[in-house]
């Protein structure tokens, strides 16, 4: 077993062909129906499903204070879908891809060429990020067009929260992918974390509907913080400093852990 740090390739030989590698990973991403569904379409499908399948989702909620007065439950889900997209990419596909690439020797074969296996990691993260961004954007578009959901009041903050959420989720994905011996194991571990993450993010109790006790704990989880901060950006509730710091700390700590423990070979 060999461990290596995730330092980016330095020499000229390590980056030659990187654009071709990114292109190849993008093609492979698009050829995998599972990827396309979960990363790109799942947040949208989830939103539409909830909007039409659950009764009362499109009725205004009566007992909510400002600034949520007059909003419908479905409107509370729109910002949440960006968090769902980040978690789906990071916890399910990134982890499974990386572990699978190690398991099948893709990383090992890469290590025999002037391209470094770190290049595969980089390309994979870039492509998955693009998938997550498209998936999130698609969900927002549908929310706006189909349900007439309001867009964020603070777009810049929403973007920052989205990027931090992706960073935190992807770093956990890389950590899992670097440690799990098999792609299927990584998938399983990812799923095990994925559902509690969705819970603390408020998929079952969005925004102001989350009980206070749960909300206090959720603030310190990466996706709970992301969801709360996203709400603040959406409905103009001020600067969620604590949540931003929580996400950044998760991202940094998980990434450092991943860099220290990532195994390139079986």
């Amino acid at each position: 077993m060999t461990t290596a740090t995730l330092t980016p390739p330095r020499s000229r030989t390590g980056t030659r062909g990187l654009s071709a590698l990114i292109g190849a990973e993008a093609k492979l991403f698009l050829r995998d129906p599972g990827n396309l569904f979960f990363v790109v379409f799942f947040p949208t499908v989830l939103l539409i499903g909830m909007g039409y399948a659950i009764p009362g989702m499109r009725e205004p909620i009566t007992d909510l204070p400002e600034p949520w007065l007059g909003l419908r439950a479905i409107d509370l889900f729109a910002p949440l879908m960006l968090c769902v997209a980040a978690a789906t990419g990071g916890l399910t596909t990134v982890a499974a891809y990386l572990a699978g690439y190690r398991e099948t020797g893709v990383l090992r074969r890469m290590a025999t060429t002037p391209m470094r296996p770190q290049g595969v990691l980089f390309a994979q993260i870039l492509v998955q990020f693009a998938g997550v961004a498209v998936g999130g954007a698609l969900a927002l578009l549908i929310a706006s067009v189909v349900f007439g959901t309001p867009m964020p009041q603070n777009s810049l903050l929403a973007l920052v929260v989205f990027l931090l959420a992706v960073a935190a989720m992807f770093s956990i994905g890389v950590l899992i992918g670097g440690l799990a011996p098999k792609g299927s194991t990584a998938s399983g571990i990812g799923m095990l974390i994925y559902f509690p993450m969705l819970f603390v993010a408020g998929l079952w109790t969005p925004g102001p509907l989350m009980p206070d006790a749960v909300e206090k704990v959720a603030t310190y989880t990466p996706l709970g913080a992301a969801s709360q901060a996203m709400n603040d950006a959406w409905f103009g509730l001020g600067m969620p400093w604590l949540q931003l710091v929580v996400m950044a700390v998760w991202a940094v700590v998980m990434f450092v852990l991943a860099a220290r423990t990532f195994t390139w070979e079986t």
Partner: protein
Amino acid sequence: MSTTPTASMPSVTDSSPATEPVVRVSGLRKTYGDKVAVQDVSFEVRPGEILGVLGQNGAGKTTTVEAVAGLRTAAAGTVSVLGLDPQRDPAPVREVLGVQLQESRLPGKLRVEEALRLYASFYADPRDPDELITLLGLQEKRHTAYDKLSGGQKQRLSIALALVGNPRVAILDELTTGLDPQARRETWDLIEAVRDSGVTILLVTHFMDEAERLCDRVIIIDQGRIVAEGTPAELARQGRTGVTFQVSLGDALEDVEVLRRLPSVTSVTSTDATTTITPAQRRTDSGTLLEITGGPTVLPDVIIALHSQGIVPDEVQTISPSLEDAFVALVGHPSEEDPT
């Protein structure tokens, strides 16, 4: 070990002095925790040759070539590839060394041509992917995804990927394992074509027939040490204690002891003539077939002894020693037996 090993000695410089070795390994040692994978291995690979690295699974073959490729850090010893040091600075070595590793797959949906073009993009001076596709007979499969290829086609693609960087040295690890006989023969022809194009090859295998067919020289590794080194024919002779031949006698020999008493004879076994293999022998239904082993002069000694008894053998067939025999003698068990 029954045979004197030539381990840890630089190979005899009987070839022309101008041929500097392409790969030089000296005193290589590699441990994984408490487990010693490679004890002490030294050898050289000369330009344009196919050197076979033989041994059982777990003998240390793969670890040795991985150290040559710079994929493993050695605990001790030095490695040089074309004057470069893969242990200290592996980056330049990767440009000139092609590696085909055992059990390294590709992403299932990557297509043949895409894989070759992708890997070609990593090198400063790659070979033309189209030329390799033709050389490896993958034209029909150019747009086929890796998962849809047969075992032999996957192996050929793997070899193509090892060659796409236009390497001067190639390491091929267990390249015919899992292939059917037809695919194995085709792969062998291919390896010879690659060597003829000027690539020096380190071939890791545990198949003796593959080594006999392809290798100019072989080293046999057992428990992390080289236990024999030489051409397959040299090793095969080393493995046998003497000369063995079969004689079929039309007339029955009344007393086999006549032969046993000859000083150069070590053993005489009588075989039922009807069970023999060659048609010539099968014709001597009524006669006797003897398998005789002995010293260097055993063949003339036996013929003279038979002649003095008034017996002229119908047929004499010497049995060529095989690398397999040598391997068993050196390592103590058949090559294809897997101890793990």
